[in-house]
């Protein structure tokens, strides 16, 4: 199906009931986007994982215990985007042509104000120089720039793939691209088809319809930032956890 809307708003719907927590999306994302192997001294809090799979548990004892995996990347906020307005030198931009919140590492001077502003912890600062073991540099994706130490990076819905799809369409004389022509690496690699991707502005698109499903929810919706990443779950306890606010009720919900 050809996308007819002049300004698509790309979005993602992740079915957490389907996610097995295999981490394939994390690996595919890192390979696609030239995320270097972590420094030996890197920790969970200093490493770079544009896509991070968190484990949620219902906190009940066996046999009532249940768990789901929640892949969290940049939520691509559509309104009052917390990171865009704070960057002092326009290194974060909202692309009106795609709805993608893009990071421009070559403009970034590493103040980390955007990292502080993001409530989803989806932004990653390069604490070390990127180093690829000898020979591994041959696996680098030529469509994506590598980043240097001291700058911030994050998920951009594999913007390099969008550019490539647009270039291909232009070469073939088309002004628009079909939904199937542009899918981020995480969505493409998910073995259980838990990650759906497409144009939210197109009412007939898969993601558009799924986002309106009664199982759908978004993270921190009450902040009014209109994230373009939706999650699906039939389990009430999952909805109960994500609707929880900062409170003493944190016990029992691990972060894997």
């Amino acid at each position: 199906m050809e996308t007819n809307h002049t300004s698509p708003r790309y979005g993602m719907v992740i079915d957490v009931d389907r996610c097995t927590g295999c981490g394939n999306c994390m690996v595919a994302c890192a390979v696609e986007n030239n995320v270097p192997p972590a420094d030996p001294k890197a920790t969970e809090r200093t490493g770079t994982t544009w896509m991070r799979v968190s484990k949620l548990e219902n906190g009940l004892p066996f046999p009532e215990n249940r768990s789901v995996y929640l892949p969290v990347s940049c939520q691509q906020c559509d309104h009052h985007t917390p990171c865009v307005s704070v960057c002092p030198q326009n290194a974060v931009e909202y692309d009106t042509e795609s709805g993608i919140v893009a990071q421009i590492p070559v403009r970034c001077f590493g103040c980390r104000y955007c990292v502080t502003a993001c409530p989803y912890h989806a932004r990653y600062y390069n604490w070390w120089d990127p180093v690829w073991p000898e020979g591994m540099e041959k696996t680098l994706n030529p469509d994506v720039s590598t980043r240097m130490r001291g700058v911030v990076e994050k998920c951009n819905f594999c913007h390099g793939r969008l550019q490539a799809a647009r270039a291909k369409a232009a070469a073939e004389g088309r002004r628009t691209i079909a939904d199937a022509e542009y899918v981020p690496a995480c969505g493409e690699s998910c073995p259980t088809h838990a990650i759906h991707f497409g144009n939210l502005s197109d009412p007939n698109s898969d993601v558009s319809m799924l986002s309106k499903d009664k199982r759908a929810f978004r993270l921190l919706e009450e902040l009014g930032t209109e994230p373009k990443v939706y999650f699906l779950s039939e389990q009430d306890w999952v909805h109960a956890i994500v609707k929880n606010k900062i409170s003493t009720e944190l016990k029992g919900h691990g972060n894997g």
Partner: protein
Amino acid sequence: MDKQLISRGTSRTPLPRFMLWILPWVAMLGIGLYAIFLCLSKGLNQTNMDNRFSFGLWIYLDLTVIALGAGAFFTGFLLYILKRKELKAVINSAVTIGFICYSGAVAVLAVDVGQPLRAWFTFWHPNVHSMLAEVTFCITCYLIVLIIEYIPVVLKNRRIKNVPSMLVFEFELHKLMVVLAAVGTFLSFFHQGSLGGLYGVLVGRPFAFRPALGIWPTTFFLFIISAAAVGPSFILLTTWLTSKISRKQLVKPEVLQDLGKISGSILIFYIILKTVDTIFWINSVHALGFSPAGFFRIQEFGTWILFLEIVVLGLVPAILLLSNRVRQNTTLLVLSATLACAGIVLNRYVMTIQTLALPTLPFDQFLSYSPSWQEVATFLAVIAYGMLVYSFSFRYLTLFPQEREIQSV
């Protein structure tokens, strides 16, 4: 040579004793410079900051020293614009402290950013909606103003004054002081405010987020007023401390009392506004579906911290400083000024560290942070740098014009 540099009519400790005094500060500065070298050459992996605690000790330090250094602009404003002539006794010291605080803060910022050589990008393609762009513009401009204000203090040195061209230059610069005081006040209002706005605009951090009054969040105004309130208290404290260490009376007691009164009057106004703001914040986060008490129920950040900030380190020193009897007792006056300064040190801590420590996602864990030795050493280097600049300034420049008058009596 040393004696010829010391101002006429004043006496200073013998040179060997002075050298002994500065030695530990030089050592502290040396260790700090090594830590800075490590951070610049190896990167910020030398710190304990991470992707959750993306701001740490340094940003907290910057916010604090800039608030305490506000005495420079506010004393200048009171002296040159509102013509409070009695403050002439401390203006040179206030300018020196302002210069130290701002230059120290800018130096730490240069280490804190990942790519300091790209700092000029903010001037080249600034995001005019960013509070940090506003902070960068105003602090850079104000540091230049402070340098120009500090130069005449240096030029008044006994030896430099002997050079006729320098004397003329100093005289010409002095004529600019009213303009510089006005420009400094304008710039200071904006950057003190935008430092508050830095947190107030964080829509993703409901603990810090505040509704806008006009285009600025309420923290913008609270930071300006709180800095104006404690600036004079900090000048009072440093003057008293210098007097104790040098064992000399540097200003007449009324000057310290005046500073205390000014500080108390603004502090009480600030505390009223801060209380109103807190009540509004409670209602606004409640409207978002959060439990306001929930923010204070996590780990060690209990409601006691709010009580300590507003009452013990806010209302109490404000009332004390407004009392004539308290002001006439130097010990109580100094104690009240210390409490007032501690209140703002705590406020900046809450805004920076508590804001970052609190979880934002419903399934987040509370995470703590403690600075690395490199961060602490860099912090101490700024303290050492300040002590050195102030010590040399006190020895060779006229920081307190009343000193000679008092000593001759």
